[in-house]
């Protein structure tokens, strides 16, 4: 804070950054007013109530969307933790033929996010009979090259003393991974979990294409259909409320666990 002018400029920029959120908060709490002039005002002038939230909640199927998105994120994460730790261990601790080649092949997936491969992936889950099911949306994410890379780096940074000791005393590799390495690698796993959940909570294109029935919809797709319906009616307050409902869980988690979030994103480097 040594340069007052510079600080002033940065503060102003940060305020500009907050404008969309400020509008979301104000507009979602402002009851439907006649005349559109006041809609854009950022000044929090009352009276406020929760009518927009009530209307948004009633016109969307939010409980269902929350449930589906949660199932999606948790399901992906659980399977990922297994695949990623096993493969990460193999790349970090074993020496085998084609290790370098395989690792490069794995890394390729980081640079080819499933979004690019939507067309063939859609054909694939259809062939597997998983079209329009949540497992179908999850399946392409079960293997995460990025997670493998992350866990490998984490394992490499851990000393081998404990696992060597356990191996000499007859522990199996699986026991070594589960009882020794994973507890020590917790920071890496937590970072991966935060990034994984954030990216799948926010994903849109793939669930949009892979799901069809309204009862399987997730938050983002639900919000999009909900918004386009509300837009034609010009009910901006309801849109703001719906957006807030979708964004709130992660935003709240971020504000509460800010340090952990920031560390995770920097630690992992990729969404």
């Amino acid at each position: 804070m040594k340069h007052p002018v510079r600080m002033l400029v940065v503060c102003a920029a940060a305020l500009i950054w907050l404008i969309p959120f400020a509008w979301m908060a104000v507009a979602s709490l402002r009851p439907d007013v006649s005349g559109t002039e006041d809609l854009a005002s950022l000044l929090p002038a009352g009276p406020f109530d929760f009518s927009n939230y009530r209307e948004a909640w009633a016109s969307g199927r939010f409980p269902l969307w929350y449930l589906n998105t949660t199932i999606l994120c948790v399901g992906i994460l659980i399977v990922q933790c297994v695949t990623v730790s096993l493969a990460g261990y193999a790349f970090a601790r074993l020496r085998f033929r084609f290790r370098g080649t395989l690792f490069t092949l794995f890394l390729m997936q980081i640079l080819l996010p499933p979004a690019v491969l939507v067309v063939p992936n859609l054909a694939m889950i259809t062939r597997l009979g998983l079209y329009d099911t949540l497992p179908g949306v999850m399946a392409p994410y079960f293997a995460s090259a990025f997670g493998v890379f992350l866990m490998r780096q984490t394992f490499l940074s851990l000393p081998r003393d404990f696992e060597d000791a356990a191996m000499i005393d007859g522990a199996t590799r699986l026991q070594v991974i589960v009882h020794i390495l994973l507890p020590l690698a917790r920071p890496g796993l937590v970072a991966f979990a935060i990034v994984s959940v954030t990216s799948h909570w926010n994903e849109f294109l793939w669930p949009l294409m892979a799901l069809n029935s309204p009862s399987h919809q997730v938050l983002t797709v639900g919000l999009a259909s909900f918004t386009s319906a509300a837009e034609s009616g010009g009910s901006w307050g309801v849109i703001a409320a719906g957006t807030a409902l979708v964004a709130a869980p992660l935003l709240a988690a971020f504000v509460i666990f800010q340090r952990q979030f920031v560390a995770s994103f920097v630690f992992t480097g990729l969404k």
Partner: protein
Amino acid sequence: MMAPARVMSSNRRRSVTPRSSDGVYPRAAIQPPIWCCLPQPATLAVPALYAERIRTRRKPLSAGAVAAALLAPSLVFLIAFTYWPIVEVGLRSLTEQRFGETARWGFGNFARLFADPHFANAAWNSTLYAAGTIVPSLALALAFAVALRESGKLATVLRTCIVMPLLIPLVAAAALFVFIFLPGGGLLDWYLAKLGIGATNWLGDPSIALGSIIAITVWKNTGYYMLFFLAGLAGIPEDLHEAAKLDGAGAATRFLRITLPLLGPTLGFVTVIALLNVLTQIDHVIVMTQGGPSDSTNMLLYYIYQQAEQNYDPGLASAATLVSVAVLLALSVVGLRALERGMHHES
């Protein structure tokens, strides 16, 4: 930290033959970290167990077999959803299917693709969008990182403000910006009108729409890139700046001669991430403009989506996907190195 002891005591009798070839057997003692000051039964147990181990030597699983077992769960899904799809896209892009005829092989899909002005337009828009997004968001991110690197309370709060857009879905950002960009009564026009500037059709004017889409992306992603620059800045030793200051270097010189060169790896790394983001995130285009008006916001991935979902043209969609994959991989050849350097940089 008690886990090792438990595993050992329960498995004391089963001994595993150590192999030096797979790198599993203890390396030369490494510098133990502080938390290793606990008693380490392992090192003590080695000599005592050694004789027994020789007696009970069994043929162990080869490292290759173990690795195969450990990699299998990942490989199954990688093959099903990354490698095979690329092969499939390749095959399908070479299959020409006309209505009522049998399929035949050929480059017809690529011929159609490259002859399609919409595709050329989408590729051009993607390039514009990439440049228009990456340059300002990286510049802003770097500026914010330099200004907010202090650990004070105010800096922390301001950093939070900049990072917040990262946490919301792109469709949620789009929902907010639909109103911000609403012509006339929308947030932007409403405030601009107070300054005496007339209404603008931010999303409806073909010459402006891409710019508006770019603005959303910049708003959403700058905070993400800032985090990396903050991490990179933290790695630059303070005494370099002090020394330069003593030598009479001004703030600008110090930034150009010290900060920027030392941030090189971070910059490369962030550029790769930004490129990937730009080419793979088109949610706002889908909900806000559907590629319009007059195709001015159509981009590669949206074009693919259009061919697949609206025109039911798998040949064209596959050819376009293959081209995108090739572009991404080509960028990655350059990028992977920066990526690895960047990762290195963080650890």
